[in-house]
């Protein structure tokens, strides 16, 4: 029993003794289902309609752009790439956040990820879809999009962009779907015989006879581990290849060795911030404060700031390598002191210094503070993408003045529609699926879903169940039980 005591000491944490495990799981289920069970209120409808209106406006703007040409979006020969490609990078970038929270935290056995995984994965799926959709306004002839399959040029970075994004989207979908299987079964059971036809089709058929037995759990775990392992290099590849759409040209400011990691880190950074925003929104909207605590936000905040520091390091590394030799300083001057300086310094202050300060100062290191910081991170990272895209695109390669890009109502509306589509799609989506992965929550337990509980403790729970015959609902309860057992002997 000494072993058990050691484990107990290692994981010594405060436990709310008054809670019983099963009651807690009931509460989890209630909260997770709150988005589905309860009829949406006025605020929900108001928000959804408002967002829907923005999306409709975006579609109208896109139709206008199709009819009048991309000139109506402010493009010209001297700024041939601008806002839409920045949108593509930004949206697909934040999608990466889902992979981080879910896959990396899953692989590293972070039990506190449990209440976040579903929201993060859903966000990943939604944003990669939106980001992929932004390729269409970016193209001059979206009607010919399939030419990329019919007449592929393997030496083009864009072909590999297409492959990488497509593969990543499929992986994200599977990664989103697999943890849904137990939930689907649960909902199917819960609805019982009252099921409408579509519900039967949707929930029953997608749950594949899930009963939650050991073999099924084992298969699900194994599948999730493999997909988690796969989705990380896939996301890295997506952002590397996206960066190579720039870095494989000879344009000063784009032809940079640092670009692939630069883009990957930017994606992780903005993605983590986006997870915070989505989690914060749903936490407030569906009153999930009990399950998603300040601790979750501070952890995400630490992660975000760490990534932010790597990102600004890469930014400076990029600027100084080209700036020092002075061979091609035009775009650097434009970025740091020229017409893009406001945008660049906005990124530095709002996108880097602000989150560092927010996390560093104890008073602001809470859900509200980190949510505000995340908001600025996401915005400033979009601005940063524009700063990456525009100065090298508009620089004169032969002689003459710099080109310039001017926003028009078309490009602004379409971009806003993409932004609005994130909460819109998520809100609609969570009318049909639970907010938490019930399986993940049950596995993590009450304590584990908030604090990190080591695998030792979880093994302990299993040992207890098998040899001592003590049923533990959650590993969090293991410590108490152990204590009791030791004392009892």
């Amino acid at each position: 029993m000494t072993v058990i005591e050691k484990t107990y000491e290692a994981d010594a944490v405060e436990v709310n003794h008054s809670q019983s495990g099963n009651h807690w799981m009931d509460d989890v289920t209630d909260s997770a289902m709150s988005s589905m069970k309860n009829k949406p209120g006025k605020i929900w409808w108001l928000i959804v309609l408002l967002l829907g209106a923005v999306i409709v406006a975006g579609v109208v703007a896109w139709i206008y752009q199709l009819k009048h040409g991309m000139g109506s979006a402010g493009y010209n020969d001297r700024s041939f790439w601008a806002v839409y490609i920045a949108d593509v990078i930004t949206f697909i970038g934040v999608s990466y956040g889902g992979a981080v929270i879910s896959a990396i935290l899953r692989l590293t056995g972070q039990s506190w990820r449990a209440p976040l995984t579903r929201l993060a994965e859903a966000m990943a799926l939604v944003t990669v879809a939106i980001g992929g959709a932004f390729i269409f306004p970016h193209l001059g002839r979206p009607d010919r999009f399939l030419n990329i399959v019919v007449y592929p040029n393997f030496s083009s970075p864009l072909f590999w962009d297409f492959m990488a994004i497509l593969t990543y989207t499929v992986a994200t979908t599977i990664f989103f779907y697999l943890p849904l299987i137990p939930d689907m079964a649960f909902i199917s059971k819960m609805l019982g015989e009252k099921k409408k036809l579509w519900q039967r089709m949707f929930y029953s058929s997608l749950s594949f006879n899930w009963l939650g037995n050991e073999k099924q759990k084992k298969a699900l775990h194994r599948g999730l581990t493999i997909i988690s392992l796969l989705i990380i290099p896939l996301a890295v590849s997506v952002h590397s290849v996206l960066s190579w759409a720039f870095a494989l040209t000879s344009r000063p400011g784009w032809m940079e060795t640092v670009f692939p990691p630069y883009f990957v880190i930017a994606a992780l950074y903005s993605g983590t911030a986006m997870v915070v925003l989505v989690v914060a929104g749903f936490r407030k909207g569906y009153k999930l404060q009990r399950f998603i605590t300040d601790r979750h936000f501070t952890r995400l905040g630490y992660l975000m700031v760490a990534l932010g520091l790597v990102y600004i390091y890469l930014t400076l590394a990029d600027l100084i390598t080209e700036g020092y030799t002075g061979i091609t300083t035009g775009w650097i001057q434009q970025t740091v002191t020229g017409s893009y300086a406001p945008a660049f310094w906005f990124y530095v202050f709002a996108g880097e210094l602000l989150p560092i300060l927010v996390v560093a100062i104890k008073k602001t290191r809470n859900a509200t503070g980190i949510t505000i910081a995340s908001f600025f991170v996401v915005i400033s990272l979009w601005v940063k993408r524009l700063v990456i895209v525009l100065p090298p695109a508009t620089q004169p390669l032969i002689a003459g003045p710099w080109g310039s890009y001017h926003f028009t109502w078309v490009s602004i509306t379409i971009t806003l529609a993409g932004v609005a589509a994130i909460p819109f799609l998520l809100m609609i989506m969570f009318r049909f699926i639970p907010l938490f992965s019930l399986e993940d929550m049950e596995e993590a337990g009450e304590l584990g879903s908030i604090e990190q509980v080591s695998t030792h403790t979880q093994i302990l729970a299993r040992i207890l169940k098998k040899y001592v015959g003590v049923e533990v609902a959650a590993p969090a309860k293991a410590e108490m039980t152990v204590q009791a057992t030791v004392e009892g002997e």
Partner: protein
Amino acid sequence: MAENKINRRNFLKIVGATTAAGTVELITYRAYAASGSSPNGWNGTSGVSGSSAASMANTESPTDHQWAMVIDLRNCNGCKACTAACQKAHYLTEDQTWIDVFSMTDSIGRSYFMPRPCMQCENPPCLHVCPVHATFRTDQGVVLVNQGRCIGCRMCMAACPYQARYFNWNAGVNYPSMPIKPTPEMPVPQRLGTVGKCTFCVGNLNDGLLSECAAGCPMGTIYNGDMITDVGVNSMGNTIKLSEFLYENDAVSFKPSQNTHPRVWYILGHGQNLDTDDAS
């Protein structure tokens, strides 16, 4: 100061000395010719890239011609008649300067003019990055765009180091009704949402005519050339032996560090520095 008088030849030497620093974008025709082994000292290139390029290319005795161009900057007065002639022939908008004339500043501060058509690179970056093979290279060494296939991603515009590609941004341009459908050789009318660029007027050349810009130049600045027959002709009727002319006049190609191997050669004469990467 008499000793410091900069003439073109010793200026080129000065320029050549700084090449080591990697900033000078000059390669002389001589160096280029020295590497070649074909009859006239040319690299007889006729790489056809793109799956259907062969069917697209003008198949009229393809390897009988390898089109090239010489731009004798000594003659250019910056009148932009070439641009106007090109735009008229291809019904382009004012912004679409398939051949543009840049006002440049030489190393001692004087200005000179530099017409810039598509360089018809032998190693065209635009071709390599096109995801759908809409850009292809004909047997005659001309890089063309199939506007019927282009998806409008503009990756080629990003890749072109010569800023030579132009997009059709706006609908509502008044195009004439043409008796024949647009072809890569004669992309008229331009199609909305696709990329266009200088075609070298390859139809003209195959018909035994000068390109529009060369014909329209009142100064005889632009020579159309054929690397197979080694003939070059300008609007003044001057006929040159291309390889000899380039050799004797120390012709250079533009931005050789880009590894593009242009088919357009420049004859300098104003002490130019063709390094323009840093145009700010």
